[in-house]
């Protein structure tokens, strides 16, 4: 329980610790501990600083990398996209001019911004973390308050290290029980979003709790927090525990020695107090979960992989029916159809949702000694150059290559299809990424979101497959 006796949630503790000014009739001024920057959403913010003659207030709390537009082909092939080149050189110039550390194109630490933050020990419990990217919610896995911001807000944080924020509400997501075999953290989050819809968490911050969450590794927790935004919540968080501290210990930016002991002591005060209340709550029984798959054009259009595609006629309102009809038309699917057995063209293993070492290890363990089906193009994109190196040191790259998959350099790649990695019109993909919006993975491309295990099972058989049929 907190010092004044009033039980608080994890979110409330971090919020209260960071409010600098709280005036009536104005949003709170919130102090930001870590600002992550990438090449796509930042250029106009730096232009704003220059126009106003402003400096970056705390370059030591700001860190940049490039991920969205970077090709995943061999680094020896020069980048041909002049627009990408311009964004890269602009970020280099901005970081140089304003004194911001940059993990640039050839840095061994470059990678997807939400992979390298935790990897380098930058992401720590109790922090406020922002980035011009909606999947900043990923960092909440460490018990941080982390959320995506727009370019105007990037400029605000660069200039003042603060952000104006209206206090969001809290939403407890309790995942009880234990996950059955073949079911992973990706399935938990896809299940949650399918229940509450993509606007279900609007105005709220999720806190994921319960036995099933506690037993997850940090990388599995990151997968869940990553997709909080797909449920409408800007942030999602997990109370820090020994799993969290063990992950952070010894990383380059983690506190060391006495500072480490002091930090852990502070972090242990963060978890939600007994008796603290939330504005909303949902309970999910992990024991009853199955592998999930999406059938439509937003992440809320998901179902258990054994279920049939829903019928628009079963929906209550006209607009709901029309929205689903439009989605099924885009996906060229029929109501009542099973997705099991449906042939696909591409399997994408990557993105800030599922491109960490444990994702690659798990995928490789299922793929080992098997082949990617002839009709499938499988692309494996590690989340960072460090993940890539570690995977190669373990021989994981060989498993993918020998199976016929394409082993690439790190980046956002086909999750956002800005760098040339993209679906052709009409193609179907099973993707471990986070968004199945129309054209997200390439104009006219059709995405089924699923876990890495489901993706690999599909790659092996060439059709959408329930991975549980392939496990002992």
């Amino acid at each position, binding site marked *: 329980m907190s010092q004044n006796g009033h039980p608080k949630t994890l979110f409330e503790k971090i919020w209260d*610790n960071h409010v*600098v*000014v709280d005036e009536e009739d*104005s949003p709170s*001024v919130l102090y930001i*501990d870590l600002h992550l920057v990438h090449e796509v*959403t930042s*250029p106009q913010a730096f*232009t704003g600083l220059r126009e106003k003659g402003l400096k970056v207030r705390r370059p*030591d709390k700001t*860190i940049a990398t490039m991920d*969205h*537009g970077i090709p995943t082909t061999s680094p020896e092939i020069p980048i041909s*996209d002049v*627009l*990408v080149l*311009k964004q890269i050189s*602009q970020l280099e110039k901005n970081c140089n001019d304003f004194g911001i550390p940059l*993990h640039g194109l050839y840095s061994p*630490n470059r990678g997807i911004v939400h992979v390298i933050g935790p990897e380098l020990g*930058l992401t*720590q419990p109790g*922090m406020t973390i922002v980035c011009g990217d*909606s999947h*900043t919610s990923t960092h909440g896995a460490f018990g941080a308050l982390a959320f*995506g*911001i*727009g*370019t*105007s*807000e990037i400029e*605000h944080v660069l*200039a*003042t*290290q603060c952000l*104006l924020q209206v206090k969001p509400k809290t939403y407890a997501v309790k995942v009880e029980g234990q996950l059955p075999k073949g079911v992973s953290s990706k399935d938990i989050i896809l299940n949650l979003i399918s229940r509450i819809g993509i*606007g279900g968490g*609007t*105005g709220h911050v999720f806190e994921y709790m319960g036995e099933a969450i506690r037993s997850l590794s940090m990388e599995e927790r990151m997968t869940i927090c990553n997709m909080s935004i797909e449920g*409408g919540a800007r942030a999602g968080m997990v109370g820090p525990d020994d799993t969290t501290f063990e992950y952070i210990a010894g990383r*380059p*930016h*983690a*506190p060391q020695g006495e*500072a480490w002991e002091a930090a852990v002591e*502070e972090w242990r005060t963060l978890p939600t107090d007994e008796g603290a209340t939330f504005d909303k709550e949902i309970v999910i029984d992990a024991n009853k979960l199955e592998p999930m798959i999406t059938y439509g054009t*937003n992440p*809320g259009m998901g179902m258990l992989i054994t279920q049939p595609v829903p019928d628009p006629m079963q929906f209550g309102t006209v607009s*709901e029916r*029309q*929205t689903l009809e*439009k989605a099924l038309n885009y996906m060229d699917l029929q109501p009542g159809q099973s997705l099991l057995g449906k042939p696909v063209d591409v399997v994408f293993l990557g993105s800030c949702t599922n491109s960490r070492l444990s994702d690659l290890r798990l995928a490789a363990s299922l793929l080992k000694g098997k082949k990617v089906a002839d009709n499938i193009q499988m692309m494996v994109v590690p989340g960072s150059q460090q993940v890539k190196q570690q995977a190669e040191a373990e021989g994981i790259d060989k498993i993918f290559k020998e199976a016929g998959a394409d082993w690439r350099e790190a980046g956002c790649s086909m999750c*956002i*299809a*800005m760098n040339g990695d993209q679906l052709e019109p009409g193609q179907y993909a099973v993707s471990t990424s986070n*968004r199945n*919006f*129309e*054209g997200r993975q390439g*104009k006219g491309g059709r995405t089924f979101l699923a876990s890495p295990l489901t993706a690999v099972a599909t790659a092996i058989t060439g059709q959408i497959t329930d991975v549980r049929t392939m496990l002992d």
Partner: protein
Amino acid sequence: MEQFTTLTAKMVSIPTENIDTDQIIPARFLKVTDKNGLGENLFFDWRYHADGSHKEDFILNTEQGRQAKILVAGDNFGCGSSREHAPWAIMGYGFQAVISTSFADIFRNNSLKLGLLPVIVDEETHYQLMSLIEEEPDTEIIIDLADQTLQLPDGRKVKFPIDNFSKNCILNGVDQLGYLHQHASKVEAHEAVNPHRVNTLAGSST
């Protein structure tokens, strides 16, 4: 930011629910370093054929679309990414306000900072506006920000919510950054009082 006080304008509707930022402006158009020209790419994949020609029946390609300054859209408008390119593109096309039954948080925040007014209405009003656009496409409505109302042609006024701070910034055309700068000394004080929270990053910065 330009001042926004009242707006008397025509509307168009895109009734689809959950219109995400990838529809508003596909990611391939984010490879820019300024804010110019994004209006051309607004709703690109709904607006243009593969050969780049206009889809003539898409509302933004019609005279009605070009005249409208208010977009009425389905529930949960602007979900998805944090790209401010979405409101930049909407403003670049010529819209000054978007009306829906709800907005995604980041889109709404971004819009408020730019003075693109996100107007939240109840389902009944939303339906009424949709019908009005269909039956009398030349109808103008009045948005009065100071009063926080929409005025329909029948004279009915509908209140909409907006926080006072954003409202005053938009009414006066003032960037929110100024408010943050006013509190610089308090930010310094926060850093001085909370070193154990503020200085937790070890090691050289790279």
